[in-house]
């Protein structure tokens, strides 16, 4: 694999061909969905891959058939507070674990690691009963409030590892200058911890956007559905045409794909970091 030679070796050509075939396997289903979303209902059942005429009106119809903007608003109503809660509380706890000495810290940290292995199914049922008794079922609260309590063990862990790499001299000199620990956290630690905070934000966005089981359990009335939940119900509730269903599917994919392409560098780095840290 010499960079200087422009010509490919036979092994490289074979590798490239395999890669291209793989890329086609990834892309064809997406393209088929996209092109079908632009067809007329009758055309859906014909053999042509491309639509004869690009029927963009399928999208405006789909947006009305499922109350898309209503579902979008619901999703954002959950997303924004969860994002704020997760980032702040996980950074706060990570700072506590990274920079302070207190009794039982080692044990607590081990407990934190252990909770990552706990399957959510074990706590799902009691949490539902708890929230039901509190009268929170069919509100967004069960999906939002837990984010403010630590923001997830894995996120704490990720940020803590990063903070440990920030030189302590920075804290110490600010301390000498009379800053208290909260000020040190906000003015020094947070601005320096942007890489893990961005990774945590992206994972949180994806988590909320993709979450299906949570909304399915807690949200009962149609007008409270998130996009993910609304899309799945679209299949059962209405007698729908394929082209509209495809258009709605594309619309739900789109924001996730846009975020992905906008921040793909952090995304791929974040996954590499997280596996390196965990493994």
């Amino acid at each position, binding site marked *: 694999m010499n960079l200087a030679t422009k010509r490919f070796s036979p092994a490289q050509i074979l590798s490239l061909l395999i890669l291209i075939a793989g890329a086609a396997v990834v892309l064809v289903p997406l393209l088929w969905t996209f092109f079908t979303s632009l067809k007329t209902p009758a055309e859906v059942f014909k053999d042509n891959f491309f639509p004869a005429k690009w029927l963009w009106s399928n999208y405006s119809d789909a947006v009305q058939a499922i109350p898309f903007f209503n579902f979008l608003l619901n999703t954002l109503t959950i997303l924004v507070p969860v994002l704020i809660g997760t980032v702040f509380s996980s950074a706060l706890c990570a700072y*506590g674990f990274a920079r302070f000495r207190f009794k039982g810290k080692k044990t607590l940290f081990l407990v934190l690691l252990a909770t990552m292995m706990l399957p959510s199914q074990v706590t799902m049922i009691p949490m539902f009963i708890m929230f039901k008794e509190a009268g929170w079922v069919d509100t967004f609260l069960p999906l939002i409030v837990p984010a403010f309590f630590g923001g997830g063990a894995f996120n704490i862990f990720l940020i803590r590892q990063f903070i440990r790499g920030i030189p302590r001299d920075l804290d110490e000199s600010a301390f000498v200058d009379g800053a208290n620990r909260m000020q040190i956290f906000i003015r020094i630690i947070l601005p320096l911890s942007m890489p893990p905070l961005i990774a945590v934000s992206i994972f949180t966005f994806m988590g909320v956007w993709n979450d299906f089981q949570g909304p399915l359990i807690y949200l009962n009335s149609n007008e409270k559905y998130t996009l993910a939940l609304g899309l799945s119900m679209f299949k059962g509730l209405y007698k729908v045409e*394929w082209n509209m269903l495809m258009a709605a599917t594309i619309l739900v994919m789109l924001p996730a794909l846009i975020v992905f*392409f906008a921040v793909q560098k952090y995304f791929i780095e974040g996954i590499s970091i997280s596996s390196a840290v965990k493994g």
Partner: protein
Amino acid sequence: MRKSNSEWSGYLFILPWLLGLVLFTVGPMLFSLLLAFSRWDIITGVKSIEWVGLDNFKAIFQDELFYQSLKVTFVFALISVPLYQIFSLIAAMLLNMRTRGMKLFRLIYFMPSVIPAVAVSMMWVMIFNPEYGVLNRALALVGIQGPAWLQDPSYALGALIVMGIWGIGNTIIIYLSGLQGVPEELYEAAELDGAGRFRRFFSITLPMISPTIFFNLIMGIIGGFQYFTQAFVMTNGGPLNSTLFYNLYLYNKAFQDYEMGYASALSWILFVIILVFTLLVIRSSSMWVYYQGDDDKD
């Protein structure tokens, strides 16, 4: 900075997590354990919880659907975990080539992993449609009459496994970063010693990325036991319970039948199974996982 009040500030900073631990983890776990030995009624709620001893577990071990869901989950995990690992590793090695355009390929391969599982499921329901889906149309082009996929009990689980290959981007990226951590000198030295491609793969690459394989293996097993959205949206366990994943059965018991006690018992069985498998993989890991610079690990 290590004055006596530092201790209290430490607790103060981790207080959100401590509260969350009690409220959303330890508390619910204890409650769930109680529920596993109780009967719970949706209408009267918490007030009428009734201790029934081992009844839930006894009923579970005579429940045919419980065994069916275990079978589905194990078959899925046993086939899909190794299959996805092999595909991911091959893809990662190809993507690790130093030629132009690799960045674009990486983006394409990773893309499916960011698409919401519900949207992926809806898309594949249409792809798998026996008459109009693109899969059977493509098969027809080469003269193969495709099966009814999701509507056929002997193909439905296989269809979900095939679909999963489409979304292995996450695993590919993790392997890719593992591969990039292998020191180049090792390959150069081996090449000088006359080691061929396959020899280099089995003697260098595989041992060096064994921690990554180990990590992906555990995640894959746990993932199989938590598989839910696709099965719920695409087949809802059918046809003939051929895709009744454990987690789906648990959900049905808890939130369709409202048998919270029974479902809690199911969730503890799930917990124990995952724990046993994870410990098995960890225990056996010393036999095949190689950690570089093991001594200075803290």
